[in-house]
């Protein structure tokens, strides 16, 4: 084969390798994209609480929904199902959990927001979903979330749903959780 052929083979081989890594690059790209556009109901921790102090607000109903991953036996439910809030102010809400099994387990809650265009306007200062919860057999707890709905919430939205799914992550060792940091986007 001539030199031109060798160059093409090299170029094509590099392209193959580049595209393989590109598929992995899609993972952070996707997360950044979701964060910037606030789609997919993903919520991200807001960095600055001062930024959102506002004078005028309007009334919005926030509905809390909890669900268990099918392999998760704990009791998990919101303390209040609905909460009337005013935009631009911080509120506290709690979720009740109880480890109903006879072994110590670790849980992780994953949030989601509907409608999706509200996601960018729901700011969380604190959330139990930023951490894992470890409970001893029979232990119960109230998990806090401190949030604010910004004044920029589109006018037609009167009702925001904040839902959590709780997962059993006992079997994930700490090493694996290092990888998880990348995904939960604590910026």
């Amino acid at each position: 084969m001539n030199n031109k052929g060798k160059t093409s083979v090299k170029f094509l081989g590099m392209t193959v390798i580049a595209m393989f890594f590109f598929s992995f690059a899609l993972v952070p790209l996707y997360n950044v994209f979701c964060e910037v556009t606030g789609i997919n109901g993903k919520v991200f921790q807001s960095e600055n609480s001062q930024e959102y102090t506002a004078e005028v607000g309007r009334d919005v109903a926030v509905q809390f929904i909890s669900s268990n991953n099918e392999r998760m036996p704990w009791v998990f439910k919101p303390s209040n199902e609905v909460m009337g809030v005013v935009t631009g102010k911080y509120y506290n809400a709690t979720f009740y959990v109880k480890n109903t099994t006879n072994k110590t387990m670790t849980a992780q809650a994953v949030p989601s927001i509907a409608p999706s265009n509200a996601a960018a306007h729901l700011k969380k200062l604190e959330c139990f979903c930023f951490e894992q919860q470890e409970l001893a057999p029979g232990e119960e707890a109230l998990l806090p979330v401190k949030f604010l709905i910004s004044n920029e919430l589109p006018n037609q939205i009167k009702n925001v749903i904040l839902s959590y799914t709780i997962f059993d992550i006992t079997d994930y060792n700490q090493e694996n959780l290092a990888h998880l940091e990348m995904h939960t986007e604590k910026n």
Partner: protein
Amino acid sequence: MSAVIENHHDDHHHGPAKGLTRWLYTTNHKDIGTLYLWFSFAMFLIGGAMAMIIRAELFQPGMQIVEPEFYNQMITLHGLIMIFGGVMPAFVGLANWLVPMMIGAPDMALPRMNNLSFWILPFAFFILLSSLFMEGGAPNFGWTFYAPLSTTYAPPSVTFFIFSVHIMGASSIMGAINVIVTIMNMRAPGMDLMKMPLFVWSWLITAYLLIAVMPVLAGAVTMMLMDIHFGTSFFNAAGGGDPVLFQHIFWFFGHPEVYIMILPAFGIVSHIIETFSRKQLFGYSSMVWAMLSIAILSFVVWAHHMFTVGMPLAAELFFMWATMLIAVPTGVKVFNWIATMFRGSITFETPMLFACAFVVLFTLGGFSGLMLAITPADFQYHDTYFVVAHFHYVLVPGAIFSIMAAVYYWIPKWSGNMYDERLGKLHFWLSFIGVNVTFFPQHFIGLAGMPRRYPDYALQFADWNMVSTVGAFLFGISQVFFLFIVIKTVMGGKKATDQVWEGARGLEWTVASPAPYHTFGTPPKVD
């Protein structure tokens, strides 16, 4: 295109080695093309047998023949085998046989890699098929293997599935590199890019698509492997991953993949229509540009498979319009084929019958695709039999008819013998009727709301399902008949002339029939 051939025969006269090792060690593009074609035929029959099991179960409502778990395995393996074992290797086989002969090259550019890329394929499919006998059964999550079905909830054999997909991907990538290097470096003097036969053009573009997306498929299955065995959470919500991400990655590969399965068909059909219309192809350069634009657009439409996952309105609209845009270059091609036939002195030998059926039925599949591209309508059609009808129309009377057309068209050149025209026509009509009886009713039951991938269905879908199953068995049996015709032709028959078809143009028709083991040892002159 005309060519002056100085000597038909090579300087060195050695033929193929004898016995089995000929096939094992061969680096000859014709041998490897033959291997690919036979392999894909075998896979076509195995995948077809699985389709018969599926249709037999669906003959009547209720559970009759197989367990639901086994049904899911059949659905999955049928899709994987037909796509990766049937259609793709058949096109690679055709490329091996035809690309060097069409551009006046003595062989493929990388003959040893060519041997390797074929011989790893049987192993990939052996692994995939052996998963049927493993504990927990074969993969059961559909050919699209959405996470978490294919990760958290997958049977243990999923690891073997991942391994076999890696091998298939490696094979396709090597094949694609080979095709590109051959076309870019080994054309006969005087054959500029815009003088290349359209089949060669279609394969050049297809090969670039393969290079771009097969590594992404490899990435997707690698991420699955890591999620399953190494505790990562790419697609696992509990660990902060996202199953929707899987669908984005998969369809970023998946949509270009469907064009990988149709572009070479466009090339084949262009040659056949040109020959049997006894006219020059209408709009050669617009054909090339249409294929290029289809290939480029195919990278920005993937989310039309995911309209219902909950995307923002802007994305739904973007993917709807981008998808519909593809219909424009596709329409240009259909127009050109018809314009080529217009006022031609047409004869309808078997390859031409298949090519004409291709034009009509592929277009029909394109129309149902357009219906699916309408986002709000897709919320109704998604995951129903309407989608099944759509993609079977573009793949069976589309891709597969083009492969059969190609076999009838070029087999005289390959084997030196004419096939039996009466039998070929009979095969065509049986296939044509079979395919329509099978898949046309699936439009109706899909619009009526029958979901895909279930072994049972509600009573109101019973009649059309029964019709569809009858059609499927007719189609299936006619392909066994096709096998018979091919074997009969290879064994003997009327001797073919060198040109074979009165209207045939192109370098491959200037060599003897059957094509000598080595052709174009000295490059022909093209003007």
